[in-house]
């Protein structure tokens, strides 16, 4: 039993940081936020951090000019967090702006969860380098801490969902057609993705029992997701259940948590994977060097002297 990412290196942390902030960069850069100014401001009551700001500020937020400027500023900070020399500061600023962005897009409609694990990942990756600075000179930064925090947060969000489901609904949801009612209802919403398999759910007799029996299994796997931090077989079982679950949700109800799927590689031992990859690369380049120009690739490498 070992803790996932316990022995992570700075190289792995740098890769994960670029991945997380890079995903946010693509997401915000491709989001036409300014269009929301067409909708009436009264549909957007301030939420979360926006509530802290004076009411006068909120009145200026809902304009195409402000939203465009806000998006550009967020993209610049995210680009700084991925590529820039002042990555630490840019990452902190990006997290602040992302929090306001995510609160803004949730002020109309309802508070969904799709992007939140990726937001928490950005928080951890931006905040732990600050803690490293507090250690003082001569102390090595701890790459394991933010990676454990990001992975634990991802696992905890699944457990939180399952715990709420069980606490609020009890076991009734698993004993009836409730899951079918939910899926059929969701499949008829006019949503961004336009899969229609869920509308014809009842025409697929094999699918109905699979969903009925699969729902408690998914809930159990979600509930115990944090154990994946220390148990490799459980991590693999989690992935084996949750990847098909997320894809099924897309095809049946047009709900896609691609942000979660993008974080799933964190449930693998990245250090070992990168180590293996680097070892293969090194041995291949050593082979190439030893073969020399004009040497046949079939020539066996000379025996090593080191």
């Amino acid at each position, binding site marked *: 039993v070992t803790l996932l990412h316990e022995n992570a290196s700075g190289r792995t942390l740098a890769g994960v940081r670029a991945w997380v902030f890079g995903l946010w960069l693509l997401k915000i850069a491709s989001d036409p936020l300014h269009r929301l100014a067409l909708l009436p401001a009264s549909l957007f009551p301030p939420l*979360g951090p926006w509530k802290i700001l004076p009411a006068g500020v909120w009145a200026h937020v809902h304009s195409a000019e402000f939203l465009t400027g806000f998006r550009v500023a967020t993209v610049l900070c995210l680009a700084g967090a991925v590529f820039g020399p002042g990555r630490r500061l840019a990452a902190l600023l990006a997290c602040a702006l992302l929090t306001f962005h995510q609160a803004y897009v949730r002020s109309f409609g*309802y508070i969904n969860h799709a992007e939140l694990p990726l937001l928490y990942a950005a928080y951890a990756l931006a905040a732990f380098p600050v803690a490293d600075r507090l250690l003082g000179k001569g102390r090595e930064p*701890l790459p394991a801490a933010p990676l454990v*925090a990001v992975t634990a947060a991802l696992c905890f969000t699944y457990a939180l969902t399952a715990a709420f489901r069980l606490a609020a609904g009890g076991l009734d949801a698993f004993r009836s057609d409730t899951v079918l009612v939910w899926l059929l209802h969701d499949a008829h919403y006019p949503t961004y993705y336009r899969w229609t398999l869920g509308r014809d759910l009842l025409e697929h007799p094999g699918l109905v029992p699979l969903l009925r029996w699969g729902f408690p299994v998914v809930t159990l796997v979600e509930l115990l997701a944090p154990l994946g931090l*220390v148990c490799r077989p459980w991590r693999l079982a989690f992935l084996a259940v949750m990847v098909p679950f997320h894809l099924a949700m897309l095809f049946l109800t047009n709900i896609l948590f691609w942000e979660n799927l993008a974080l799933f590689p964190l449930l693998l031992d990245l250090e070992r994977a990168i180590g293996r990859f680097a070892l293969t690369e090194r041995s291949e380049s050593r082979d190439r060097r030893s073969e020399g120009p004009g040497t046949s690739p079939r020539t066996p490498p000379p025996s090593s002297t080191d």
Partner: protein
Amino acid sequence: VFTFEPKLFFGAAAAWGAIGFLCTLPAPETPLGARGGQWAFWLALIVLLVSLRPVHRFLAALPRPHAFLLAGFFALLLAGQLADRSKDTFPFVSWKMFSMPAPASLGPIAYYEYYGRTDAAERVPLNPERLFPSLKNYRMAVGLMTLAGGALDPARPDPEAARRLSEALRALGARHNRENPGTPVRGVEMYRCQLDPRPGPARRETYRWRVWHVEVAP
């Protein structure tokens, strides 16, 4: 595999007691018992996790700033769930998904559809989330449905919800016209649809009736 350190254990339990206090605060939807049940579950899970030797070893070796950061982050995550006041505590929210009350057996399903009406009286389907992708993942769909629920409440129609619904539908039309200047719409219609999924596909019918209509300025 397991280890026990009283200092760490009682420290975590004290912090957990403080978070448990949040369970007693009034929350709009979740009953107190449900929050208490979750509190007990999380206490058990956290005790289990911190008692595992590799987790314990990792936590014990963390410098103080990192330990505070980690503990603070997860305390906020769990407090957001237990407080169940997502609009106030965002980004630390309660994780409700497939947990809303739903009928135990299949019955008629109601939903809304949106159409634009052109000058030639043709009906063009409108997809609100495609027109405003920032509000995808059901944010737009649920937002419009909530407004419709208020505006069309047979017992007590909400005039404010009605005004907002009209403005939102006009915005759908305006956005469509910007994207499709060749086929602009002059009005937007909202239909309530009802479908009983129980009969086979051959006998299944969807009933649609127009419940709202707004003009769109050219």
